[in-house]
């Protein structure tokens, strides 16, 4: 953080230097012109001052880029950390379409934020310097008027922010709706009554358009009315001083200062608009960010074996009529092989989550001989599991090591072949390095679940719970995969429907 602040201060100093030199070059030129002493030397001095300003500009730009990179990287790290700490239920509420809408907001966030903030700050510096010039030329009314104008700018910014916020929310909702319709196009084609295909679309679009119109009006006030209004005020001040009989050089200084303060005000208002945009983008990410962002704990060594005892362990979602898992007693010893069965909704997955520690029991007591995190690994069902866009090796080594040691890669390949992915490995041009995931090499349902199995086996947890992992497999493949799993696990719990 101190580095960021230091950089920011340096940017401001460099920018103040640049703008000061710029103003000074005009003072040299203007003074000499009115004094009638304009010579080649003066022009040379003017050019040197301008060139020095250019040097300052180079320094500012360089510092700004460093600032943008550091701030951007920090922001992205923070967002990822936040995402990884999310409540899984919140993510399940939103699928690819919704999350993508939010992620796209992050793409321009740091540009908007650093760009807006820097432009705004730079404009503030310019405004102060130009205001000094203007006050000298036109008198003490300037600071009072300028302050009033800045208050107006603040009000306009707040108004624009409010409207943009409403528009952004509506825009994301429209995007989500469209994405949902695209993803569900087959369902719409077969199940929807063609007469009702476009129900509600017009109304949503109209509401959105009127929000957009209101936001655009807010933007016009902020970026046109504020600077142009100031130009009008400044011109009126100038006219008053001319009418009062000010001398030519003072009038010249006043005229230039009016133009410069207008420029600074224009910069300030676009900077403020950028900041408002960033604020609205950030608000869309808010729900994805937890309050605290602690470092994830370092991985402690997990024990070889573990015993689990459950006494009356049950789970009840608040507000639901029935318990997700009625209390049960259970003991799992090292080396046990368990089949967990029951109809849909009987609490199999809930029990798996309780054993793995992702849920806390609402009744009863669960006792493990080791409480080291990672002792019990419950592999999520295929519907809730996910292949990351990346090499197959990364996907199977997710619970182990990445970037991998050669030994990790060797055991990854060994496990993949043992559970029946050998065929696939030979078929893919890049083998373990083949990119899989949404736009990567396409896997069948069965291959997908084998990759999930390989991922689980390679983590080497003392207790492994496989939730419906074998559901999509043919009997023959299942046999191979199950044998491999039995050879490589100490305690195995298989959830079967």
């Amino acid at each position, binding site marked *: 953080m101190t580095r960021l602040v230091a950089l920011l201060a340096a940017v401001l100093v460099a920018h103040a230097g640049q703008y000061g030199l710029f103003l000074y070059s005009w003072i040299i030129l203007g003074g000499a012109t009115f004094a*009638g002493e304009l010579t080649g030397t003066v022009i040379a001095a003017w050019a040197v001052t*301008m060139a020095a300003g250019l040097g300052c500009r180079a320094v500012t*730009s*360089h510092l700004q880029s460093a600032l*943008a*990179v550091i701030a*951007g990287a920090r922001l*992205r790290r923070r967002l990822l950390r936040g*995402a990884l700490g*999310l409540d*899984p*239920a919140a993510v399940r509420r939103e*699928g*690819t*379409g919704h*999350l993508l809408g939010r992620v796209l907001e992050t*793409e321009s966030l740091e540009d908007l934020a650093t760009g807006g903030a820097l432009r705004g700050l730079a404009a503030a510096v310019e405004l102060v310097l130009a205001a000094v010039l203007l006050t000298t030329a036109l008198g003490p009314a300037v600071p009072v008027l300028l302050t009033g104008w800045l208050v107006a700018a603040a009000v306009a910014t707040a108004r624009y922010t409010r409207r943009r916020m409403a528009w952004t929310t509506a*825009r994301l909702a429209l995007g989500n709706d469209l*994405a*949902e319709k695209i*993803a569900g*196009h*087959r369902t719409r084609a077969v*199940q*929807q*009554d*063609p007469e009702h295909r476009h129900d509600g*679309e017009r109304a949503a679009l109209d509401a959105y358009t009127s929000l957009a119109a209101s936001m655009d009006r807010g933007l016009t006030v902020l970026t*046109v009315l504020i600077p142009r209004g100031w130009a009008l005020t400044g*011109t009126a001040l*100038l*006219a008053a001083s001319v009418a009062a009989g000010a001398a030519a050089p003072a*009038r*010249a200084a006043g*005229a230039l200062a009016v133009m410069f303060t207008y420029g600074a005000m224009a910069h300030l208002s676009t900077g403020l608009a950028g900041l408002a945009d960033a604020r609205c983008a950030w608000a869309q990410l808010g729900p*994805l960010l937890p309050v605290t962002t602690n470092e*994830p704990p370092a991985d402690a060594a997990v024990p070889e074996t573990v015993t689990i005892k459950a006494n009356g362990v049950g789970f009840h979602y608040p507000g639901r009529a029935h318990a997700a*898992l009625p209390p049960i007693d259970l003991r799992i010893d090292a080396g046990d092989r*368990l089949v*967990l*069965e*029951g*109809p849909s*909704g*009987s609490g199999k997955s809930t029990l798996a989550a309780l054993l793995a520690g992702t849920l806390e029991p609402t009744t009863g007591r669960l006792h493990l001989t080791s409480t080291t*995190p990672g002792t019990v690994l*419950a592999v999520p069902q295929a519907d809730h599991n*996910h292949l*990351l*866009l990346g090499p197959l090796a990364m996907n199977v080594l997710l*619970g182990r090591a*990445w970037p991998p040691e050669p030994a990790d890669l060797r055991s990854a390949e060994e496990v993949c072949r043992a559970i029946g992915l050998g065929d696939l490995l030979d078929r893919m*041009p890049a083998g373990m390095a083949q990119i899989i*995931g949404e*736009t990567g090499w396409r896997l*069948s349902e069965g291959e997908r679940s084998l990759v999930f199995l390989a*991922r*689980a086996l390679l983590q080497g947890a003392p207790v492994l719970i496989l939730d419906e992992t074998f559901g*999509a497999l043919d009997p023959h493949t299942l*046999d191979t995969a199950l044998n491999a799993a039995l050879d490589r696990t100490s305690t195995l719990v298989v959830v079967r429907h």
Partner: protein
Amino acid sequence: MGARRFLAPEVVQTSGMDCGPAALACLLGGYGVRASYARLRDACQTDVDGTSIDAVQDAAALLGLDAEQVMMPVDHLALPEAGALPAIVVTRQPSGLTHFVVAWRRHGGVLQVMDPAAGRTWVPVRRFLGDVHVHEFAVGAEAFEAWARSDALRRPLLRQLDRLGVPASSAEALVAAAGDAPGWHALAALDAAVRQAGAGGFRRHAAAGEIARLVAEPGAVDQRHWFARRTPGDPGAVTIRGAVLVRAPGRTAQPPAPDELPADLRAALTQRDPGPGRFLRDWLRGSGHRLAAIGVGAVAATAGVLAEAVLMRTLISPGPAPGWTLAALLALATILLILDGALLAAAAGVGRRLETALRAGLLRRLPDLPDRYLNSRPLSDLAERAHRLHRLRELPLLALDTARLGTLLVLLPVVIAVIDPGSALPASIAVLASAAAGLVLLPAQAERDLRRRTHVGAVARFYLDALIGVVPIRAHRAGRLIEGEHGRMLGAWASAVRAVHRTALTAELVQAGAGLACTAWLLTAAHDRVSDPAMFLLLAYWAVGLPALGQQLGALVRRYPSYRGAVLRAIEPFATPVEHTPTPARHGGTGVAVHLSGVEVVSGGQPVLSVAGLSIPAGSQVAVVGRSGSGKSTLAGLLLGWHRPARGRVLVDGAPLDAGNLAWLRRHTAWVDPTVTLWNRSLADNLTYGGAPGAGVPEEVLDDTYLTEVAAGRSGPLGERGGLLSGGEAQRVRLARARLRSGVRLAVLDEPFRGLGRDQRRDLLRRARRWWPAATLLYVTHDVADALDFDRVLVVADGRIVEDDNPEALAGKPDSYLRGLLDAEQAVADRFRDPSWRRITLGGTR
């Protein structure tokens, strides 16, 4: 016709994985063959995982290019002696995915590359080679030796030796000596040695000596410098590591006859892709007068700003200022305030209209888009378009900025010339110099900007993946690992961003420096001629503004590719041909009769299902079983319209299943499949979806589908794609939705009970068979035992119906396929019943 153009035509891909057809369209266009990129996409079977390079090569050859797919050492790519260019080259993106670009020509140290992701770029050779995807492949030793002894290796080798300063005679001797040795290994070693000597910075005699030393002791050559190595355990094979490309040095002598081409490729030659310009003209037609008014207003506002400065000048001239100037100044400031406000409001209004029209059009068109259009594109790619539509609203604002800048660029030198004719020359030069400096540096900036964007995309994609996969990432405690990988990507991103800033700064300094020199020249020359100090100051004020114009021009031009991409992506659905689907009125109360004859379904060039003859009588109930991937779902998909038979006929009630009949059939189909979408709305809305709006859900339906308790505990939306339900719950919601459907003539139940326990499954199947008593019912499952209750079962294996009979009869035959499936299923069940497993059964009655 047929000559290779100097510039590779720009073909920008509109979908994330469409670089293959876009690169092919560019390559063809570069030889004067105009081909539609959208149709090539179909012809090359481009899918969510991209395009196979073989398909690209085949299509190129069929369309008349002398195209061949080759592998070569990466560093040979840019050597004229290797004859690699022009070619479609496989590169590697920051995400690790492969990507196709067209390497068109070499100009000194720079390659002209057409990257379908952005357009034409000019890339330094070394950097391009760093992006090339390195592929490893085993080839036959004899074939490789023939290549190594040919000019294909000899000439690039001699060229590289020449570059290292090795005298021609020594170079010839080295190559000859390697050629004299038997087999390919000596030549491969020489090739690797030359590469290592080059990388080591050896020159002239030192290089020759180093190469000779390495050739004598090939073990000393580093692994990464070898193009070809022995394949362990196979003396007949050579493993090569290098670039993969489809090179097309020219056109074939015989141009292709359109009649002999496959339909897709013929369409590619006859159809045209839409251009963003024409499309925007069509969409903005209603706003024409507004745009004209904005144009006039922009000119007026710019002129007003100049007039303001002129008035200021009269104000600061020595002596009393005339009273009218004060009034004029105030009036002008007021006018500018109103004009600027009106301009921004009008431009934003046009933008809103454009966006709204596009959104409405897209929503209208969406249901009519062909299934293949949506299914062959990654969901995230389509969703991104849905979320990015609003970018088009910025176009009129961009046009406004351009109009103002253009006016200023023209007017400013003119007014300077009016004040002081002698300053016209330096003023024009100042504008030209700063604009030219910007344009010269533009390709470098564009190239770095593209690189930055791919890194931004990769980081964002990774972030999205982490969000979607947060459940498994937590379960596997992979948070640190993910953050580490993200950090590595951020490192690459940061250096890409820094490179963009560096070139931008260079461009700015060059422009500003050139401008400053011109301004200083202008002022030095003008101060003798312009004696009025106010006039001189005005001249100076404007002259200083000149270089900034060049910079703004550069900034505007830089934004062009990203907006072009956005427009192309938005308009693509409108350019896709859709079928009009009339709905003929049909009557008749019972189920439909289905008849298939000689049907073949092809997907990705592979036959996935062929049915010689199949009749399903009206109202009958048939089970379809087989292993996953056997083609049983394809059979169901034929009736739903997901697949078109490449050959043969599908008859429903004796009529061919054309678009109109398909629409009718779908209205009367109850469809249950794990892929049926649940909407992010309430449970009741999901259940009554497709029926009359506002209809209630009868209690008995909830009871029937075990949903009473699910319904009791829930009031809010179910999450995107029903994410808040468990797999079994979601499946029961799909069942209940089908149960509520009226007028059902056909029921397609494809794995309808996934995620449900055995008892529930049996029970639901028994009920479901009574829900639509008159309808024809198809029950597709890989759980073979469920099929035994049916009168008729179709057993599908390897894309064919291998058995079609009564299941009990088939089960009784020891050598039947069905018996085999049953036994295998039993064996699995037995495994878990083995006493080595402890069984825990949860719940009971729900």
